[in-house]
């Protein structure tokens, strides 16, 4: 909840649990590494 006092606004920001975005990056990076690995094998 934000608060206002004489035109001064105090913004309350809650602790974030960024699990979803961080896990999405982890998965995307794993997929990219896999793809790269397959390409290397294919070209070998």
């Amino acid at each position, binding site marked *: *909840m*934000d*608060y*206002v*006092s*004489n*035109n*001064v*606004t*105090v*913004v*309350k*920001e*809650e*602790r*974030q*649990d*960024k*699990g*979803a*975005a*961080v*896990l*999405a*990056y*982890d998965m*995307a*990076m794993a997929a*990219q*590494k896999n793809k790269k690995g397959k390409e290397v094998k294919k070209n070998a």
Partner: protein
Amino acid sequence: MLNFDEFKEYVQLNLADALPPGYENAKLTINEVVKNNDRHLTAITVLPEGQNVAPNIYLDGFYMEYQSGTDLDTIMDEMADMAVAHMNPVPEFENIAKDFQDFDFVKERVIMVAVGRERNEELLSDVPHQNREDLALIYKVLVNSDKEGIGSITIHNNHLNFWDVSVEELHELAVENTERLLPARVQSMSEVMREIFAKDGMDEDMLEMLCEERAADEQMYVISNECKVNGAAAIFYEEVLSNLADRVGSDLFILPSSIHECIAVSTNTFTAEGLAEMVVDVNATQVAPEERLSDHVYHFDAAAKTIKLADTTVEALGLVAADSSHNYEATKTNTEGNRPRHHR
């Protein structure tokens, strides 16, 4: 169906009737707040007689509820309940309007926060800031920090005039304070996953199996602060990226995961273009619009200690300004001997 302007008017005229006895003389005021990424929100403050701090209740969510079919009486009751539940703020807020005028109070608490320049044109026209590639460091006064998060006030241009302080002076104070008040936290992805899964109750054996520590240059690192709120600015703390680059043994690519944290990986393992696609995709699917930082990837040069935009998509970005060659570890600007002057 009321349009949003009519809804605002209705709330201002009728919310008092939904408040419990004792709030008959509460002052109700509509105001607009610009949040990160130029998101405009409309709120109503409910200031009871004899008090000087009022909860700011945002109407946008309630209007969506109304559009979904909830009747106005129910919405007025929900709003009144919310106002009453938040009528007693934490003690730090009680004299905040007076404290905020005193630069001796402010100078111990001013912090820097990283936001994206592309999506914050309006905000940046009204707040002091320093540009860093396509990001900007804006300044806030940290009023309160607890297990729930932080309470802060954004500093606007008119406040600088009032305090008679320059942006450079403010920046210097913010660099010192932010590292002290919101210390950096760098975690490997394995540690982060361990934390997430342990919170969900996963047993130790399973954690060991899933969260196996990888080689340093194969790891992804999450950079934030201890609070995990507005932690993306931690990439501008002195030594954070240098220490990580030493640990990894290479330069780093930095991914702007959100305003709350960045992700770093070794430049040996990925390409900037591949990572940029990833950032665009994750931003679009996993990050709330108000928490997005940037769609671009940065390169940290460990030898030069600089951060620069890395992906080729930035060629189309008009924001890459002449000031883009900052040494990012030297976040302290050269204002030695230029401490804040007289303060009212």
